[in-house]
């Protein structure tokens, strides 16, 4: 009785190629066809990413080496824009304000979000609080900026403090005094973003194993001890994610600042993102604005990669 040869060995037949070989060839061909159609489906997304993202980045980097004003043809100027940035008196103010925003937006919304999540976790009506705290994020940065500009203006807190008899507080120029203007905008931003961080912490808290917390409470861990030894370590992964996102967002702080002060008065509340916008679109120094944008991007990348690498190292340890 003839038996089929083991796979891969030629048998020979009237149609030329051996049956086993024909089966292998057919499989490879099918896999190639499937790959081709997969690639074709990915092409539109690839075009979008390459076209809108990488193309923009490459063009911005190129612009940063020119004296483009967005109207007439640009000339290559090498590192002139970067040198100009180093000697620009506005550099220090922008670096300082950007760092203030980064630190504040890590400490305040993240810290308050954590406190609110822990405090409300087991409270009745948690969903109501979730909605109330999340609502400011849903209304967007521009609306938030308009609302808080009114509150910090002459018809807002000033009127309230006047009515309550706090004259000295009523005369405070919340958005015109330096550095109070930056702190006031940070308050507005904290009000808006704290709810999102709180929701993320809720998610983290919900994933903590109940058996662990029950065992800990049986051992006498309550309140601060429970938080310190059980809750906080269990939230470390979520905290890392939230902080990483906060770093990236804070370093690019723009929308709220633009609506409330446009970086003023006299550039005192400007950040890197505001600075690049002003140079590009108000002063028509697109090359210079592009150089600032490149420096900001590098700064954000280094900060976020550095933080994530350190966090991952700790996790592995």
């Amino acid at each position, binding site marked *: 009785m003839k038996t089929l040869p083991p796979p891969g060995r030629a048998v020979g037949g009237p149609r030329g190629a051996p049956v086993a070989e024909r089966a292998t060839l057919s499989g490879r061909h099918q896999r190639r066809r499937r790959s081709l159609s997969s690639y074709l489906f990915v092409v539109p997304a690839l075009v979008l990413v390459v076209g809108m993202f990488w193309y923009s980045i490459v063009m911005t980097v190129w612009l940063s080496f020119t004296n483009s004003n967005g*109207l007439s043809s640009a000339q290559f100027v090498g590192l002139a824009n970067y040198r100009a940035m180093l000697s620009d008196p506005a550099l220090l103010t922008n670096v300082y304000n950007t760092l203030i925003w980064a630190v504040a937006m890590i400490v305040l919304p993240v810290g308050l979000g954590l406190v609110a999540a822990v405090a409300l976790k087991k409270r009745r009506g948690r969903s109501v609080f979730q909605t109330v705290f999340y609502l400011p994020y849903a209304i967007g940065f521009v609306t938030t900026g308009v609302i808080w500009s009114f509150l910090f203006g002459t018809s807002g807190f000033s009127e309230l403090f006047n009515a309550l008899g706090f004259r000295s507080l009523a005369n405070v120029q919340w958005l015109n005094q330096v550095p109070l203007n930056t702190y006031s905008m940070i308050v507005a931003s904290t009000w808006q973003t704290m709810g999102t961080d709180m929701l993320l912490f809720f998610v983290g808290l919900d994933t903590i194993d109940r058996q662990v917390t029950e065992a800990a409470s049986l051992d006498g861990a309550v309140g601060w001890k429970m938080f310190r030894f059980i809750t906080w370590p269990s939230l470390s992964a979520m905290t890392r994610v939230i902080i990483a996102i906060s770093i990236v967002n804070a370093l690019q702080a723009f929308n709220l600042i633009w609506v409330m002060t446009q970086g003023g008065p006299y550039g005192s509340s400007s950040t890197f993102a505001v600075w690049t916008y002003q140079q590009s679109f108000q002063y*028509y120094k697109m090359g210079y604005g592009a150089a600032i944008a490149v420096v900001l991007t590098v700064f954000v990348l280094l900060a976020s990669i550095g933080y994530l690498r350190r966090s991952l190292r700790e996790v592995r340890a």
Partner: protein
Amino acid sequence: MGVRGKKQVLAAATCIAALAGTTSLAGVPAASATSQAYLQLANDKPGWTSGFNAIGKDLAKLDGVGWQAQPYSSTTAFQAVVRAAATTSKAPPLFTWWSGQQLVPLVKAGAVANMTSYVKTWEAKYGLNPDVEDAYKVNGQYYGAPLYTSDWVMYYNKKDFAKYHLSVPLTWSALMQDAATLKSHGIAPFAYYVDDWAGFIWFEQILLEEDPSAYQALVNGKISYTSAPVVKAMATWRQIADKGYFSPPMNIDTELGSPTPFVNGQDAMLLIGSWEESSLTKAGMVPGKDFGAFIVPPINPKVGWQAIFETGPVVVSAHNSDMQQALKAVNTFMQPSVQQAWDKLMDFTSAESVVKSTDPTAVYVAHEITAEKVHLNNRYWEATPPQVAVPVSSDLSKFILNPNLNLMPFLQTLQKTAQAYWATAK
């Protein structure tokens, strides 16, 4: 290739083709925008859309070519888009812009059509104010038609003036006397704004009223910010601040649109462009009854009466294939009947003397301009290049917030900014 494989590849290819088709369709402008009857009018004034479109229909009825507004909600985005397209065939046929030094880069790039022959006709036939049209003059040629013209006036709260028996001042000392009276009664004589572009408001007014030729020289980079006329103007400004005649500074971007202290009478006077009148009427004030306006009297009577005006043009792209039609539409727009309709729609005052306003404050100001032979000067924001105007106006906020700062080093900073531009521009 098997049937199933062919179907997968065909499906993928169809998706790509559909997306490509969608993308290319998105690039085709809407038919109405480039039809013979209506041309696109790109602008950064979304609140004016209904007015633009109403007048656009009138233009089409009169001469066959009208316009349709294409608004951008952000001025900065609008400028960036127009500047990028300005020297290409993709430039909008018509667009709003700014006068003076803001127009110069477009002219130098060959982006806007020459309207000189039309301007001469408008001046001769319709009484177009040559001071206003000069704002659109570059190297002796004209490149824009005034879409709106606003005089910078001192609005005053009539109730405050009546209560303290004050009258419209015709001299600077009378204005200061009125201010002293108001101050003594706990009213802030002048509403004061800060931040962003507010810095130039009092700076330009005082310098102009003391030395108009120095003002013109300064905006054209011919004299320094540390020169004697500028130092003198800053000293005058400081004196007014030291006397406590200004209200606590308010953020101009967030508070000018709702000038509550002026409406309530806590601030008696407001130095601003006449476009602010719409905010006052929206707040319930009635022109002529609750508020009036006057031209600020000269500080130095020898220089004669001066006033600031601002004007914004509609310009025609020199690269769009509809250039001739666009020029025709603009020419029709400048006809007195259309100007009258436009002014009525928008509460503007035409720059043409044959077109009369019915707004009582505008009528009084127009009368004052004629009676006192007031010479109109382009606003600082347009008269000097934006690379100087924007940072200097921003820095002047420092002086507003601290008028007793060390003046010369401060002025040297302003001069350094100006110098950085003029050195490369010359």
